[in-house]
């Protein structure tokens, strides 16, 4: 807004307060502000009104970080987090049983290859890791891409050794066995948003290593007896 009188008048108008005749006359004729069209004025006035409204907001809490004079960080919604963790642990336990069973029937060498390479096959191809065995459970849809300390084959076909258990979430049971790498991990808070490479593009082994380096799922693995 080019002049303060216009700004005040337009804010008042946007908030529903009628401007005085003087203010109205000023706005209509103001040489400084005539560069603005009515629509621009309306948008800018509404923006300003919203900004003022937000500026008056106060947080209903004050963040207290851990270690600050004995205070603890307060997080809401603890129960869903605990439930998510328990669900992840339970699914992992089921996976262990499943893979133990699969391995005992298999004679395919020492490494448990849980992810295999190949070209994406599904419609949403750039987000899909084909060939990974799936496990649907009423508790959730979490799968392991690689077990800690064991060899696995990435979907690009290269063999790597995982430092941590790498979990992959399935967005929907009906999509199984196609896997969506980021969503469930984000939901479960097992990985931070900025740790996840852009899975809408082809992922490389560097990306996988990035995940392996950054995600510490030792607790989850330990809870499932595989840490």
């Amino acid at each position, binding site marked *: 807004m080019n002049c303060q009188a216009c700004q005040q008048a337009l804010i008042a108008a946007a908030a529903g307060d009628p*401007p005085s005749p003087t203010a109205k006359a000023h706005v209509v004729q103001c040489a400084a502000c005539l560069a603005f069209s009515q629509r621009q004025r309306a948008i800018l006035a509404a923006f300003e009104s919203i900004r003022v409204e937000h500026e008056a907001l106060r947080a209903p809490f004050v963040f207290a970080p851990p270690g600050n004079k004995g205070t603890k960080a307060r997080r809401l919604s603890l129960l869903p987090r605990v439930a998510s963790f328990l669900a992840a642990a339970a699914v992992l336990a089921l996976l262990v049983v499943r893979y133990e069973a699969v391995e005992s029937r298999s004679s395919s060498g020492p490494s448990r290859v849980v992810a295999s390479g190949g070209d994406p096959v599904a419609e949403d191809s750039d987000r899909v890791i084909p060939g990974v065995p799936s496990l649907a459970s009423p508790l959730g849809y979490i799968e392991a891409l690689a077990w800690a300390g064991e060899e696995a084959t990435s979907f690009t076909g290269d063999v790597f050794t995982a430092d941590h258990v790498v979990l992959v979430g399935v967005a929907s049971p009906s999509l199984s066995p196609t896997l969506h790498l980021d969503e469930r991990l984000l939901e479960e808070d097992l990985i931070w948003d900025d740790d996840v490479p852009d899975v809408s593009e082809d992922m490389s082994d560097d990306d996988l290593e990035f995940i392996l380096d950054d995600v510490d799922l030792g607790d989850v693995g330990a809870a499932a007896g595989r840490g």
Partner: protein
Amino acid sequence: MTPRHEDAAPDFRELSDRVYRLCVAMLRDETPARDAAQEALVRGWARRASRREDVSWWTWFGGFAVRVCREFRRGRAREAERSAGTEALEAVEAERDATEPAPASLPMTRIVRDAVMHLPDRQREVTVLRYFIGASTAEAAELLGCPEGTIKSNLHKALASLHAALAKVGIEDELSGVSAGFDRGGSG
């Protein structure tokens, strides 16, 4: 000498307020905004060791707030899809649009806020940061982790979309119509 950011302890009262405001502006509702703000502060604090010296506490925690709000919005969209199904959701939206009062009769702030909330993610975030929060272009660029040019181009697109949205509800773009807009206020 300018103190390094890391030398000064953050003012958590002020930070809590600012992050909360940002979350309210991004999510519109205060209840999820409170959760999102706390989540952002917890995440930012947990990862504070990776903060660069030249990044202020506000932009550090604000960046987390933007990402958490993005996740909240995605989560809500997924939830809506799960509970109603895409087609049912579209039908509900269409019905709601049809039964809503004429947009032009709503307060301008609500019309604009609604229009902003329907912008694509990046345009909405840029608009909220620049105009609802009052962040500078440089601050917005730091918060969103993109170049200033991206902020400007998205802002340009956002304003163009808002112009189109207002045209749709009958807000004229004529200079001569200014007084008519004020007449709706009922004075003078």
